[in-house]
């Protein structure tokens, strides 16, 4: 097809309407704005390339060229999304882009040539319908952008320097610290829809205390010196990303404890570094996904999923634990995949046979499935626990 400039833009906008509608549906279903933000970026990248590059470089565009151009646009869109801080999961973002691209191909190669007799002759121009489609696309974009802006959670910037805690967060919003923000004495989250980002918390009974709330995101927080739990979650749903939790090596402290949340949506702990304490990451009676964390030098267990928890632990690295690396206990159902457990030492002082330096233990009616590669080390079942390799 030899597109005119107007034809390129109008065809792009016609395809954009499909992408925007899908993105709007997705945004509604996920209660998240990233699909619309991503769709906006996709359209912006496409239109910019249409005007600045494609029109001049491609007086004729064979069908197959759509594929490399699509890949280039995908790369540019994802890079821009990252740069703009669009919180789109990579796989979902690629899937949305791929769907929009496919829909665009079907539209320009089949639907529009079928609906408009002179679509090809007109170089992709759509006449009055083109202007209408452009208005619809811009209207959807502007409308959803306006709604996104109007409903955007408020942003509270925490000043650099030491803040005296406990800091109680009782309003929804994004709480973002600066490079030198320190809260001494703990943070307490008392309301749902809170994001706490880039904050260093020192001391406190619990470093960060989250109770009876949903949709809480702890992003790149650092917690040190808590006397009980670094991050203490009760009857709540949280997503903890890229945190650092340091606890005293021999105290009865826990890095991250998520408990009594089986009735909540699944919590996530991923990309965290947890050192010291009795237990690194522990769940009691909770749904949890524990992924890509590094847990080291714990005195009781590295990762524990217990008391009828249901969850998955995958791609974690557990090192230097005393007694047990990963425990699935007390009628929990656990999927363990691709974890690396190393240097687990027996706890000879306990005289507990389950703590004699096992990489993985399933006990007290717990059901454990092992997937993929597990690290070398002893694996054991006790008191009705089972382990099945898949």
């Amino acid at each position, binding site marked *: *097809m*030899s*597109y*005119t400039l107007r*034809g390129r833009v109008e065809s792009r906008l016609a395809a954009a309407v499909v992408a925007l509608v899908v993105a709007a549906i997705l945004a509604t279903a996920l209660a998240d704005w990233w699909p619309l933000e991503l769709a906006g970026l996709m359209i912006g990248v496409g239109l910019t390339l249409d005007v600045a590059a494609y029109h001049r470089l491609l*007086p*004729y565009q*064979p*069908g*197959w060229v759509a594929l490399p151009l699509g890949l280039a646009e995908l790369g540019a869109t994802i890079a821009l999304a990252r740069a703009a801080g669009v919180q789109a999961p990579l796989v979902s973002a690629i899937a949305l882009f791929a769907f929009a691209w496919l829909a665009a191909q079907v539209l320009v*190669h*089949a*639907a529009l*040539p*079928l*609906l*408009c*007799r*002179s*679509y*090809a*002759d*007109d*170089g*992709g*121009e759509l006449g009055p319908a083109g202007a209408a489609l452009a208005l619809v696309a811009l209207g959807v974009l502007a409308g959803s952008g306006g709604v996104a802006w109007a409903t955007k959670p408020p942003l509270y910037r925490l000043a650099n320097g030491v803040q005296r805690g406990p800091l109680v967060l009782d309003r929804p919003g994004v709480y973002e610290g600066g490079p030198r923000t320190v809260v001494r004495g703990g943070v307490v989250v008392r309301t749902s829809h809170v994001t706490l980002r880039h904050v260093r918390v020192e001391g406190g009974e619990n470093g960060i205390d989250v109770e009876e709330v949903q949709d809480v995101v702890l992003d790149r927080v650092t917690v040190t010196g808590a006397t009980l739990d670094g991050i203490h979650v009760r009857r709540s749903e949280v997503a903890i990303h890229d945190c650092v939790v340091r606890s005293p090596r021999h105290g009865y402290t826990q890095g991250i404890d998520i408990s009594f949340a089986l009735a909540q949506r699944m919590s996530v702990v991923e990309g965290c570094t947890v050192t010291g304490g009795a237990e690194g990451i522990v769940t009691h009676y909770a749904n949890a996904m524990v992924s890509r964390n590094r847990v080291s030098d714990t005195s009781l267990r590295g990762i524990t999923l217990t008391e009828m928890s249901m969850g998955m632990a995958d791609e974690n690295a557990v090192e230097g634990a005393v007694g047990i690396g990963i425990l699935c206990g007390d009628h929990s159902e656990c999927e363990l995949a691709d974890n690396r457990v190393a240097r687990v030492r027996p706890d000879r002082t306990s005289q507990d046979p389950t703590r004699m330096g096992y990489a993985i233990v399933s006990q007290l009616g717990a059901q454990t499935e092992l997937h993929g590669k597990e690290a070398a080390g002893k694996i054991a079942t006790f008191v009705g626990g089972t382990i099945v390799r898949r």
Partner: protein
Amino acid sequence: MTAECAIVGGGLAGFTAYQTLRHGGLEPDEIRVFGTDSDPAGAWRTRAAAIRQRWMRSESDGHCLATSFPGLAVLEARRERSVAPLVASVLDRYNPSVSAFLEHVAELRERSGWDESFRATRVQRVGAAASGFDVGGQDIFRHVLLAPGHPGLAMPPDLEEDPHAVHAYEPHEFADRVAIVGAGMAAATEWLNALAAGASVVSLRRREPERRPLNLPRPFFTRRGLAGFHALPPDERARTLERLLAPSYPPGRAWDEPIETARRNGRFTVAAEVDGAEQIVCATGFRRGFAHDPLLRRLVEEHGLETAGEWIVVSPDCTVTGLTNGERTIGLAGVPAALGFPAADTLAGAKYAARGFLRRILGCRTR
């Protein structure tokens, strides 16, 4: 209902226009087609057979349907239950076979009501009348599309009486030593035919042919290239057309390898004049210009139509400027419409002219 719309010419351009009008909502009894052969592919089939053509130069959208989708690649993929035609089409490597194209025409003729609208009449004159156009004394039609086809085969004047000379589009076999005049698609096809028949070939050409997949550079098939062409004054358009219509045939090994092999073996040479050939095949196309067509010549003379070089001046939608207004339309389709669409004698050109004609009909104040 009385027919208000006439197509003069029952060849592929007229047939394509008929399909477009039908797609636009006109019923068979609203359209009258005047021609000499009810088979719309009759003349084309004879010429394709003469040059032993097996593959179309056109691509997936080289069909007679009103919309460009579904193209012949899609139809073939569906028929053969194979994605190969689609992949080839996406890669610009798809050319339908002549037999598939002819089947498509036959099938379309069957289901479109063509024969219901067809009248076997050679129209000698079309003239403006009070409320439309008088078509050969048959009736008055408000909207008329003239698709008379090529006005005869072009032979070099000095070969017209030569008993050794035959036109490529007339049935012929090959002698042992053949001179082939021309450098376009038909000439290239004849080089390969003659070589395949065991003959030695002398190619007589005035200039080196262009190598391109279609008759014209691709932008000239859409508004991208047409906008600039239409913006030219008519005389300049005619001169541009002369350049654009220079002989060409597609690139590719299928064309080059047999010729290169024959050249190495001394069986293919390029020469400036006929020298000792037993047979001369004139792949010199068709006569060009309205003056060679009695119907068009009379229309120009009787109505004082504007012309440029050998072409009738038409609007960008291929309608004749001086005779078309909000209540009546006369348009050209096929080769005479070249000042509206440079590749007018292709299927794409026929569709382009037909769409312009349909837009006029649908926008007509009296319809």
